[in-house]
């Protein structure tokens, strides 16, 4: 009984962790993409450089989401 409660709590925690952890990267990546669009509209000749920088910035801001993914995987499979 007790172990079932712990398992249920871990699964619930994994869901909450992933849900809240996805908010930040979503906002951040969308903001980055919007700013990159503005930059490309202003100077289309720099499109390659801007896209590269945007991808790197997005991957960096995605890392908090990846951390929450790792935590929720631990909660699902290791608890």
């Amino acid at each position, binding site marked *: 009984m007790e172990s079932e409660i712990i398992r249920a709590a871990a699964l619930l925690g994994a869901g909450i962790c992933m849900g809240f952890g996805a908010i930040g990267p979503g906002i951040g990546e969308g903001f980055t993409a919007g700013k990159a669009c503005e930059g490309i509209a202003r100077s289309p000749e720099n499109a390659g450089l801007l896209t590269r920088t945007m991808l790197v910035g997005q991957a960096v801001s995605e890392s908090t989401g*990846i951390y929450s993914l790792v935590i929720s995987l631990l909660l699902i499979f290791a608890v």
Partner: protein
Amino acid sequence: MKKKSKKALLIILAIIIIEGILSIGLNHELQFGFDEGKFVIRNIESEKSIQDQINHEFQQYHMIKLFRKFTINWSVLRVILFVDLFLILFAALVRRKMHLIPGKLQIVAEMIYSFFSSLVIETVGEKKKYFTPYIFTIFVFIWLCNIVGLIPIPGNLEPTRNLNVPLGLGIMALIVVHYSAIKEKGIKLYLKEYAEPIAFMLPINIVGELAKGISLSFRLFGNILGGAIIILVVSNLTRFILIPVGLNLFFGLFIGTVQAFVFTMLVLSYTAVAIK
């Protein structure tokens, strides 16, 4: 020249086949072969649930015990050695015939190298362009490690899926960054930077430096493992029909390339900040 490139292709093919045979011997769950007179490529009617399969993915490691508690993870090391062998072979093929007018292989190698060379010069300056080989190697290695899972051989897992590989790469990057910082500034100035605004900030700065390496390696690990698990779950839901190809294209090629590039770019910018 044409004959030789054909020969090289044959050698690479032979290596892949040998690797496949090796992996058949070592992999616990063989997924293609003859079953009741039919040729089965993948056992769809598996009795195991998704949970069991994912657990299996986590623990599918063949450990070789050397002495006491010291073990070697052979199923990861095997793929890493395969990637290394491929890189060495490529380098040997390119270097054997260097011409002023480049051949096909040489053009490819020169293109990638000059891209990274210009990136390094852009970031750390003309004088410090001796970082290029390290940056180039780390990119090619991580990139090949990320996309090696596309080759459909049982047991051909991406080495970066295991945390030990990205952690090793992250520690190596930290060592390079700090060594070049000490070499550039001298030990006194380097140690002084840790107590920068006030001496009270010392522990925070140290933790910040360590967090760089950890965030680098966990980013790579989480991306690759998350992609692998998503591929496994969705493939199970769609009964391995057609969808996994697109998923492999996205998670294997696109995410793998972007993450390898991000890793190298971050190592480069950490170095640039450290030696500025």
